[in-house]
C-alpha cells in the first residue's frame, strides 16, 4: 500500500471490534441445527470488516473528502443537470410517515403517501402536457424502455406487428438505442444537418410502415432546440409512428414549451435532474413516464387513482404492459421532486428555465473566442464546444477536463455528443451565481492560454488530486473487482 492510499475498510478491520447494537434476543432460543436442514447452516463467516463506530465514521468521512459533489463546487456536467439539491427535500423524505412505510400495507393506512403520488402525477401531467403519468420507472433509461414497451404494445394492439424500428438521431444519449434494443426494436439512425438539428430529408427517407417511433431529446444533446419539431411530428405521425420525448433536457424548456404540445406521445422525465432528486453518486433516480390518451391503457400497473376523496391503486388494467418494477417506483426520490415542485411553484419553475438558459448562453458567448463553437446560435440549458483548436496544439479535450480538476471544478461532459469532434459539453444550471460562472470562464480561458504557451501543464494534469490519471487499461485487462485478503 502506498502511504497516501486510504485503506480499504477490510484493511482497517480488527477481530473482536463491533460497530452495532442489535435488539435483545428475548425469545427462548432453539438449537439452530434443528431449525435448519442439514447443509444449510453457513460454515464460514463472510469476510466482512470488524470495526468500531468511530473507525467506521472516520473511514467514510475520509472517503467523502476524496469525492466532489455539487456542494463541494461547480459541476457543469453537460446533460446531467447538476443543480443544487435542496436540503429541505432531504428532511421531508426522512419523515417517518414517508421513509418508514411498507409498500404492501393496507391502502387505508397509506393515504398520505398515495395523495403525494397522485398530486405529483397531476403536477407532472401539467408540466409535460400529457394525459396520464406513471411513477413506476426507477431511472431515465428505465423510463425509456417502459415508454417503448408501451409503444410496442400499442402497435401490437392495433394489429400492427410490422413496426419493428425505432428512429434515433446520431446525437442521442447511448441509453436511447440500448433501450430500443432491450424493448425488442431495431434502431435506425437519422443524421443531423449542418445546423446540428435532425435532417428532415433524411428523416423522410427512414420513416415508413416499419416505423414504431422516433426518439428525440428537445433541446437535443447539443443544447439546440429542434425548431422543426412540428414538421417532424407530422412526418412520423403521418407514417403511423409515435413520437418519444427523452426528458433528460427538460430543464431547458419548462414553462416555455411542453412535450405534449410539440406532438410527443410519450415522455419520460429524470426527476433526479430537473427536479433536484440528488444524483447520489450514480443513483437512485426516478424516471416517470407520461403518455397521451391513446396510450393510457398500456401504462404499467398499478396507477394511483382518486375516487370520492379516497386514493387507491388501480390494478385492473387488462392492456397494461405489466410491471416494470416491484412496488411503485423510487418513492423516496418522488417525495423529493414533489417537495421541490411545491417549493418553486409555477413562477419559480419558469424562472428556473429562464436562468438556466441565460447562464448557458452567457458562458457560451464568453468562451466562444477561445474554443471552437460548432453551432453558433442561441443555446438552451447547455452548449457544446469543440477542442479542435487545442487538439492541433497537442492538447486533447481529456487534458482540458483533467486540468479543470486543478481549479477545483468537476469537468464538463466530454467526447459527447458523438457528432462533435473533441466535444466539451457544458451545463451550468440556474442555481449558479454569475461569480461562479465568471471564475469558471476565467479558468477555461487560462487553460486555452496554457495550451498555447505551456501545453505540458495541461497534458500532465491533474496536479492536485489525491490520485493522478489512473491506468484504466490494466484495470480492464486484469480486472480486480473485489478485495482479497493477502495470503
Amino acid at each position, binding site marked *: 500500500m502506498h502511504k497516501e492510499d486510504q485503506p480499504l475498510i477490510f484493511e482497517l478491520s480488527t477481530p473482536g471490534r463491533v460497530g452495532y447494537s442489535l435488539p435483545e434476543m428475548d425469545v427462548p432460543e432453539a438449537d439452530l441445527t434443528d431449525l435448519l436442514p442439514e447443509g444449510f447452516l453457513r460454515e464460514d463467516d463472510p469476510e466482512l470488516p470488524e470495526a468500531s463506530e468511530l473507525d467506521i465514521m472516520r473511514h467514510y468521512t475520509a472517503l467523502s473528502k476524496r469525492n*466532489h459533489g455539487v456542494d463541494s463546487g461547480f459541476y457543469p456536467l453537460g446533460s446531467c443537470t447538476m443543480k443544487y439539491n435542496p436540503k429541505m427535500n432531504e428532511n421531508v423524505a426522512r419523515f417517518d410517515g414517508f421513509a418508514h412505510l411498507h409498500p404492501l400495507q393496507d391502502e387505508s393506512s397509506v393515504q398520505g403517501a398515495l395523495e403525494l403520488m397522485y398530486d405529483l402525477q397531476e403536477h407532472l401531467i401539467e408540466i409535460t402536457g400529457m394525459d396520464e403519468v406513471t411513477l413506476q420507472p426507477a431511472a431515465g433509461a428505465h423510463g425509456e424502455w417502459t415508454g417503448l414497451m408501451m409503444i410496442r404494445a400499442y402497435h401490437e394492439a392495433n394489429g400492427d406487428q410490422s413496426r419493428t424500428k425505432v428512429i434515433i438521431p446520431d446525437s442521442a444519449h*447511448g441509453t436511447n438505442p440500448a433501450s430500443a434494443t432491450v424493448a425488442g426494436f431495431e434502431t435506425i439512425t437519422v443524421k443531423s444537418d449542418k445546423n446540428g438539428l435532425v435532417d428532415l430529408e433524411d428523416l423522410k427517407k427512414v420513416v415508413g410502415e416499419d416505423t414504431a417511433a422516433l426518439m428525440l431529446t428537445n433541446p437535443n444533446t447539443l443544447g439546440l432546440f429542434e425548431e422543426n419539431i412540428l414538421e417532424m411530428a407530422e412526418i412520423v405521425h403521418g407514417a403511423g409512428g409515435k413520437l418519444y420525448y427523452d426528458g433528460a433536457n427538460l430543464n431547458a424548456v419548462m414553462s416555455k414549451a411542453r412535450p405534449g404540445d410539440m406532438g410527443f406521445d410519450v415522455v419520460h422525465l429524470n426527476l433526479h435532474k430537473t427536479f433536484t432528486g440528488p444524483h447520489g453518486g450514480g443513483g437512485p433516480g426516478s424516471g416517470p413516464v407520461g403518455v397521451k390518451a391513446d396510450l393510457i391503457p398500456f401504462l404499467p400497473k398499478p396507477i394511483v387513482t382518486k375516487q370520492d376523496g379516497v386514493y387507491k391503486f388501480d390494478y385492473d388494467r387488462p392492456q397494461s404492459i405489466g410491471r416494470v418494477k416491484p412496488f411503485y417506483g423510487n418513492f423516496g426520490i418522488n417525495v423529493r421532486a414533489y417537495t421541490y415542485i*411545491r417549493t418553486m411553484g409555477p413562477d419559480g419553475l419558469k424562472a428556473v428555465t429562464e436562468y438556466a438558459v441565460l447562464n448557458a448562453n452567457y458562458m457560451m458567448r464568453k468562451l466562444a473566442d477561445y474554443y471552437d463553437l460548432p453551432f453558433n446560435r442561441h443555446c438552451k440549458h447547455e452548449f457544446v464546444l469543440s477542442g479542435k483548436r487545442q487538439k492541433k496544439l497537442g492538447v486533447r479535450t481529456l487534458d482540458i477536463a483533467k486540468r479543470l480538476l486543478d481549479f477545483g471544478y468537476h469537468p464538463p461532459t466530454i467526447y459527447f455528443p458523438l457528432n462533435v469532434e473533441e466535444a466539451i459539453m457544458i451545463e451550468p444550471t440556474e442555481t449558479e451565481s454569475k461569480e461562479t460562472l465568471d471564475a469558471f470562464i476565467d479558468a477555461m480561458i487560462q487553460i486555452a492560454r496554457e495550451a498555447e504557451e505551456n501545453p505540458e501543464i495541461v497534458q500532465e494534469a491533474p496536479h492536485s488530486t489525491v490520485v*493522478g490519471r489512473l491506468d484504466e487499461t490494466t484495470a480492464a485487462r486484469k480486472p480486480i473487482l473485489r478485495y482479497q485478503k493477502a495470503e
Partner: protein
Amino acid sequence: MKHRYLPLTESDKNAMLESIGVSSIDELFSDIPEKVRFTGEYNIKKAKPETALMKELAQMAAKNADLKRNTSFIGAGVYDHYIPVIVDHVLSRSEFYTAYTPYQPEISQGELQAIFEFQTMISELTGMEVANSSMYDGGTALAEAAMLSAGHTRRKKILISSAVHPEYKDVVKTYAKGQYIDVVEVPYKDGVTDIDALKGMTSEDVAAVIVQYPNFFGGLESMKEIEAIVHENKSLFVVSSNPLALGALTPPGKFGADIVTGDAQPFGIPTAFGGPHCGYFAVTGKLMRKVPGRLVGQTKDDQGRRGFVLTLQAREQHIRRDKATSNICSNQALNALAASVAMTALGKKGVREMAVSNIQKAHYAKQKFKENGFEIAFEGHSFNEFVVKLNKPVKEVNQKLLKKDIIGGYDLGRDFSGLENHMLIAVTELRTKEEIDTFVKEMGDINA
C-alpha cells in the same frame, strides 16, 4: 424573481444579457416556434414558503401508519430491520449524495472505493466471485439475470419457480416480452418448488432456472437437487436471495449458482414505501464480462498510488449503444453506500447474529401460532417468514389489527389461487417477545 435557490440578481441578469447581446431573456427562446410556445405559467399549486410547506408535508406524512409508530409483521420482500444510526450520518455527507456517477476518477475516489467495498461485501455474502455496483432493485436485477442467461446460452426459455416473489415474476415477464423470451412457471408444492415438476419441465432449450432462497413463503429450497437438475441441461442456475439470510445460511455460490441477485434493502435501507432500495447482481468469474451495469475495478496511477475506476465499460450502453445487452445507466449508488455502511457496522459477527435472531424470533412466533391453534400452511424450515391460514379474509384481519397499531402480514390470496385467507408473516430481529405474544393474541381474537 427572488428565490433562495436562484442567485441571479436583476443587475446580474442585465449585465449578462448585455454581454450576450440580446435585450431580453425571451429572445433566447426565439427558436421555439410560436405554435408550440407555452405562454403564461403552469396551472399548478402556488409556491409555499419553507415552514408552511414543511408543515403541510409533515401533515401528509402523518396520515400514514408508519413502521415506527406501529408494530410491523409484514415482509414479502421488504423488511423492517435495525438500521444503525451511523448509516444516515454517512449518507448525509453531501460529497456523496450530491455527486454524479464517478466518471472522473481523480475526484471520485471516495465513491469508487465505497462501491469497490460494496462489491466485495456482496461477493462475500453470496459466495460469488464478482458483484456489480448495484441495480435498481431485486426485481429488475432478477429480470436482468434472466436476460443475461438467455443471451449467454442463446436459448429463449426461462423456468421460474412460482415460489418467487410475485412482483419479481411480473417484472421478469415484462422484460422477457421485450426480448421475445418465454417464461414458464414451475409449480410449488408444500411451500417450495416442486422438484418432480421441475424435472419434467427442464430441457436443453432452457436458458435458466430461477428460484428464490429463502423463497417467497419463507421456505428453503432444495438447492443441491435443483442445481443438479439445472446443470444437467447446461442451463444457468439463477438464485434471488435475501442477503441478510446469507449471514446464517449456506450461500448460493456454495450450491453452484451461476447468478445471484436480490435486494440489499435489509441492510441499512428504510422500507420507503417500496423504493429506492438496492438491487445487487453477483456472478461467477466466467460471466464477469456479461454483467449488466457498472463495475468498479482497482488500479494504480503513475506514482503507484492505488486508485479505483469504472471498468469493463465496453459492456455498457454508452459505449455499445444498440448492441448493449442492458440499458441500465443510473443505478442505486447511494443505497449501495447505505448497505455498505450497515454491513460494515454489523460486520462479520453482527450479520450472522442478526440473521440468527431472525430465524429464532420467527421460529418462536411460528410455535406460538401453532400453540394457539393456528394452522401453519407449510411445515418446512424457514428463515424469517412463514404462512398462517386464517378463517377470514386477510384484508379484514389487517384492518382490525391496524386499530391495535399492528401492521399485519401479506395477503397471499392476492397472487396465489388456493391461498385465499393465507397470511405471510415476517418476524425480524426488531420484534420483541412481548410484541410477538401480543400479535398472536390479537390474531387469535380476530380470527375466532
